[in-house]
Each structure stands twice: as structure tokens, then as C-alpha cells.
């Protein structure tokens, strides 16, 4: 189901930056309100949002937020841990935003976004911003709008942005290319040593948390994860800490926050860490470029002559030949300068 909405992007941008304030509303609340509306624009119309993000009122702002991803199995306790980590970070005087992604229905687009219910402690704290997002068909554990949302939220100066992914299995590792620190939340019985040998997000996290340690003995899980982790931390490489937590008994939380800070220091202090950050930024540029290209590609494909489509359908022509022709032609046009900048 879709509804139409109107927005004045100039006012919205100047409200986000705080240059103008909604009438009868506190200045900070006004900025938060505008941010919320802008995030909806981002989720629903990424093209308009791309232009909006370049608005002069926003371009003068910058973000220095530390982005922490929390990913893991459904029910591992990501939301509850997020809630507790928000509390710890607030005690350290840090402002925190949370982006909580939950799955959308592929049939209707509808969703029940239920992560926020675990974060009731912080609803009225003006230095905590919580936003739920539907995954809207994206399969990487986050939504397409997540990157842009981090950017926008960061413009309000939050110190930390916690991104809680959809409950994931093994291969949904997009968060690794988004977050500065990715935390994988597991449970004492999440699997044996063979599970932990598998490729995917299990090999990529920066911090491992075995949560719900009050429910069963985590020792085997912890020692297997630590063996994996120590094998990764050769030389100056980061050795991902493996932590035991219990959200119910509030254990291991200080260690968790400490690990997040240590990882930030590592990225800052070591050339290896800075190289990782640089690679992540390059990935972000590439992802955005692919997003722009995808729309151009769809336009090109819509213009392929029926005869050619029919030939592919009849098995007479490989789809790769058509694709290659389209690419060659488009590339030639770009080189001749026929596609103008900002043609969108």
C-alpha cells in the first residue's frame, strides 16, 4: 500500500541544520522531526533523496559518528543488548542513534517493526534517536536506505549510530561494509565447531558476543570462537574479542563497550586499521555508483527491441551478447559526452 506525501525540501533541509525551527517546537525537537521526515523520503524515494543529500544546507554539515553494527540470529538478543549498550554509552555522555531493521513482507510490503519495544528505557531521552526500518526486499540484513540514513542521522552530531540488522543466518554480511565495528551476537548453543568453520559473517565480525550466557554453559562456544579469533589476529591484525554477556543479568556489558572503544582506537592508530576503513569507504562509493547505474541499466533494458528479446527467449541469442552490446554502446556515448552530468 502506498500513500502520497508532499514535502518542501528547502524547509526540511534548513530545519535539519537548525537554521530554521518549527513554530512552537524546541530547536532540538524541530531538528529531530525534520530528520525523521527526511529518513522517510530516503526510504521511499531514493532518487529525490540523492538530490536532497546534496542540498547546500546539509552539505555544510558533516558527520563523525561511530557506526556499530549488531547482527546475529533472530532471538539472539540483539535488540535487548542494543538497549543496554545505549544505556552504557549514555552514561559515558555519548549521544546515540539506533537504526533497527526488521523484515518486510514480500507479499504486501507490510511489516511489524518490533525492535523498538526492547528500547523503552530511552524513548524520552533527547540524546537518543531510535528509528525502525523495514528491510523492503533487501537481502543483506539491512535495507537499501540504511547507508543514507546513517549519513543523515550523523549530520545531527550523534556520537554513535547502532545499526541492528534483521535476524540473520550465515551469508547476510552487508553490515560489515557499512559499520565501523560489526558485532556478531550468538548464543551458547548456536552451533558446533563445524558451524564456526563456515564462511560468511562468522568470519568477518570485529567483536563476538555470546549472549544469554545465563541460560546454558557458554564455555565450549567461547573457546571455539576464541581459537578462530586468535588465528585471525596475526601480526598487527585486529584480534576480535570474544565476550560472554547476559542481558538478563546485565553481565559483560562494560567489556562490550570497552571492546567497541578499543576497536575504534585500533582503526585510528594502526595502518592496518586505517586501510580497512579506507576500503569500506571505497565500497560505499561503489555501492552508490551501482545504485545509480542500476536505474540507467533498467532504462536501457526497457529499450531493447522486441526482436532481440524474442531471440533470447527462443534460445537463439545469448543474453550476454545483448548485454555486451548495450554496455559497449553506452560506454561509447559516455566517452563522447552525450550523457550529461546530472541527467537524473
Amino acid at each position, binding site marked *: 500500500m502506498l500513500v*502520497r506525501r508532499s514535502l518542501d525540501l528547502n524547509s526540511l533541509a534548513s530545519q535539519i541544520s537548525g537554521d530554521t525551527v518549527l513554530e512552537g517546537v524546541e530547536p532540538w525537537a524541530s531538528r529531530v522531526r525534520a530528520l525523521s521526515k527526511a529518513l522517510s523520503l530516503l526510504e521511499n524515494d531514493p532518487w529525490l533523496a540523492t538530490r536532497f543529500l546534496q542540498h547546500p544546507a546539509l552539505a555544510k554539515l558533516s558527520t563523525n559518528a561511530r557506526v556499530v553494527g549488531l547482527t546475529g540470529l533472530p532471538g539472539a538478543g540483539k535488540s535487548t543488548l542494543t538497549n543496554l549498550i545505549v544505556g552504557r554509552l549514555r552514561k559515558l555522555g555519548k549521544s546515540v542513534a539506533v537504526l533497527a531493521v526488521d523484515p518486510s513482507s514480500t507479499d504486501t510490503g507490510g511489516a511489524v517493526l518490533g525492535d523498538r519495544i526492547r528500547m523503552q528505557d530511552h524513548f524520552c531521552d533527547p540524546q537518543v534517536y531510535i528509528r525502525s526500518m523495514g528491510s523492503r526486499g533487501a537481502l543483506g540484513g539491512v535495507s537499501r536506505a540504511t547507508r543514507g540514513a546513517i549519513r543523515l542521522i550523523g549530520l545531527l552530531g550523534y556520537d554513535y549510530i547502532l545499526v541492528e540488522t534483521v535476524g540473520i543466518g550465515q551469508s547476510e554480511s552487508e553490515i560489515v561494509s557499512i559499520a565501523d565495528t560489526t558485532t556478531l551476537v550468538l548464543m551458547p548453543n548456536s552451533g558446533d565447531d563445524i558451524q564456526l568453520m563456515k564462511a560468511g559473517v562468522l568470519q568477518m565480525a570485529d567483536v563476538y558476543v555470546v549472549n544469554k550466557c545465563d541460560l546454558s554453559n557458554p564455555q565450549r562456544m567461547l573457546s571455539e570462537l576464541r581459537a578462530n579469533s586468535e588465528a585471525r589476529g596475526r601480526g598487527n591484525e585486529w584480534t576480535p574479542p570474544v565476550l560472554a554477556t547476559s542481558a538478563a543479568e546485565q553481565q559483560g556489558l562494560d567489556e562490550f563497550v570497552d571492546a567497541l572503544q578499543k576497536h575504534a582506537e585500533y582503526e585510528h592508530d594502526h595502518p592496518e586499521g586505517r586501510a580497512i576503513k579506507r576500503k569500506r569507504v571505497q565500497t560505499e562509493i561503489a555501492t552508490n555508483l551501482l545504485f545509480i547505474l542500476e536505474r540507467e541499466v533498467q532504462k536501457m533494458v526497457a529499450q531493447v527491441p522486441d526482436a532481440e528479446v524474442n531471440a533470447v527467449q527462443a534460445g537463439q541469442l545469448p543474453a550476454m551478447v545483448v548485454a555486451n552490446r548495450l554496455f559497449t554502446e553506452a560506454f561509447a556515448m559516455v566517452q563522447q559526452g552525450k550523457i550529461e552530468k546530472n541527467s537524473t
Partner: protein
Amino acid sequence: MTSTLKIGDVTFSKIPRVLIAKPGLDGHDRGAKYVAKALRDAGMEVIYTGIRQTPEDIAAAAVQEDVDIVGLSLLSGAHNELFPRVVQALKSRGGADIPVFGGGIIPDADFADLKRAGICAIFTPGARIDDIVREIHGILES
């Protein structure tokens, strides 16, 4: 590059977002969850705050989530007090444009005052879920 951008008033299509909330001291959330699931199945993104929320909690959540409508469920009898306070709290956070509907055990005699206080629709026991979804859809499109 930015100088060539022409942006001002725009319109766009969005998936509607709804906040379902339970203000005050009332733990009976079966109705709220039932409505939440029906709105999900109608293609909306539904955020549920859980039970025992203050009007300020609910308004903060509604604004941060940029919902298009807020639904309040209350079976304790405190609707005359709490529903208008949610409307006021929304206003003070810049959410005066967010409509609020209510549901629960609400006597007919209270309808007029609640409407005056800014509650756009009221659903009571026996309301058909299809009718609830249709009416909310209508409010969202208006």
C-alpha cells in the same frame, strides 16, 4: 554541482507507517496486537511500542519513526485523560500533523469530547477488522 539542483516542493509515494501504542496502566494488549497484524497485512509498516507507555513516550516514538498515524489502545477507562495528552505531546514535538485514532472500551458518551480533542476515529469492541483497516486507509489518503 549543488547550484544546479532545483528542489523545493516535492511529492512522493510512501509505504504508510503506523504506531500502535498502549498509554497508561493497562496490560491488555491483545486488541492492539490484533490491529497491528491486520495493518501489517494491509501493507503498512507497523511499530508497536508495548504496554504502559506515557503520552510523552508515545509522541517521541511517533515523531522519531515519522509515522503517518498513531493508534492508541486503552481498556482502563483513562482515555479521556490520556488520549488528549498524546495529541498535545505530539504538538510540542512538531507532530501536530500526525492524526491519532483510538480503540478500546470507550463509552459512546465520550466520543464527542475525544473528537474535539483531536482523535480522528474511535473503534470499540465489536468493530470489524476490515472496517478498521478501511477507515484508517481512508484517513491516510485524505
